[in-house]
């Protein structure tokens, strides 16, 4: 049994990729085999916290772009990044990065790609790497590709900041996800000013969307200072963010067994 979890936000800059990387590390720390796919093809970035140097051709050959253009199988685009993590974990993390070459990003915009391949690729990756969990880091906002990730996911996590633009956009996303019959949906409120009453914000957000808030993550200077140069929860395991996300990670895999 495996599980696909999509991490999405309506707007950019919510901390989606860092949260995805943190959850991947925490789930792997429980002994699971975790895949992470960067489907944010227009603005990829999750390779950074995993320390994968996409510019080093000795390390990285194919990317997700190559798979979508039919140049390779999706398993050829996966790189094990477990050893790049600051702390040893008992499981494994594999990353499917998207290309950061400007020419390849513009080619994608110009020529497009076969959306069906993305759908099939997730399943093939789970099989090829014997994954327990596949985390999909999506492109923010709503597009056909994002809707596909949302539609086929087992769990949808929507990240928002305590910002009124985020609130409005999240309402749209929640509405669309419900229309797509998403099996399980939860929210993460990120970058909360520490002066806020967290329980009050949680209650308000849950009432607003009729959806559970699974984690409340405070704004953190340590997170900002880390600047994506590593996986935060491994660097600061006792931080409140690490504790919140550890609880969520445990919950996400509770039905998978150890």
């Amino acid at each position, binding site marked *: 049994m495996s599980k696909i979890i999509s991490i999405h936000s309506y707007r950019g800059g919510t901390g989606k990729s860092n949260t995805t990387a943190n959850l991947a590390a925490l789930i792997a720390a429980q002994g699971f085999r975790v895949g992470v796919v960067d489907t944010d093809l227009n603005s990829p970035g999750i390779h950074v916290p995993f320390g994968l140097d996409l510019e080093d051709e000795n390390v990285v050959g194919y990317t997700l772009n190559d798979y979508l253009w039919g140049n390779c199988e999706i398993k050829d685009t996966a790189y094990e990044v477990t050893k790049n993590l600051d702390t040893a974990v008992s499981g494994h993390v594999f990353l499917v990065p998207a290309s950061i070459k400007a020419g390849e990003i513009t080619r994608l915009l110009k020529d497009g790609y*076969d959306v069906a391949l993305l759908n099939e690729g997730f399943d093939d990756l789970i099989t090829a790497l014997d994954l327990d969990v596949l985390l999909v880091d999506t492109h923010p906002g709503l597009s056909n*590709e994002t*809707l596909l990730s949302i539609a*086929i996911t087992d769990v949808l996590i929507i990240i928002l900041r305590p910002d009124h633009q985020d609130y409005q956009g999240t309402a749209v996303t929640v509405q669309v996800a419900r*229309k797509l*019959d998403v099996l399980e949906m939860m929210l993460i409120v990120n970058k909360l000013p520490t002066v806020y009453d967290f329980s009050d914000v949680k209650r308000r957000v849950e009432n607003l969307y009729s959806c559970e808030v699974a984690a409340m993550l405070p704004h953190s200077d340590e997170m900002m200072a880390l600047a994506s140069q590593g996986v935060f929860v491994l660097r600061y395991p006792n931080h409140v963010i690490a504790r919140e996300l550890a609880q969520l990670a445990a919950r996400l895999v509770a039905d998978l067994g150890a």
Partner: protein
Amino acid sequence: MENFSDWQETLLHLPLFPDGVVMADMLTLPAPLGSFLRRVLRMRQLPLSQLAQLLQLSSEQAAEIGQILVEKGVLQRHVTDAEPEYKVRFAPKSKTRLSDQVWNALGDL
């Protein structure tokens, strides 16, 4: 929507999707069909027997509905040694509509 004639009636008014469907179609198609396609998508690819279960029709009736959906361009059918299998037929991603001038300017990237 468990009745064969109801399905036939619904599909009668379904437009053609010559290039396949996009995800946005799944949000705008009539409720029983949209819901059906979302379930097919979640199951990735399903044999005729499962299609029949999903539609709550006999195999023969499901094959007929499947055929209409294939002809309308929303499903793909794969013939296997056992029974035919169906999956959602997606349209390729639309190309960005920028002028050639713009792409030429980006050509050196």
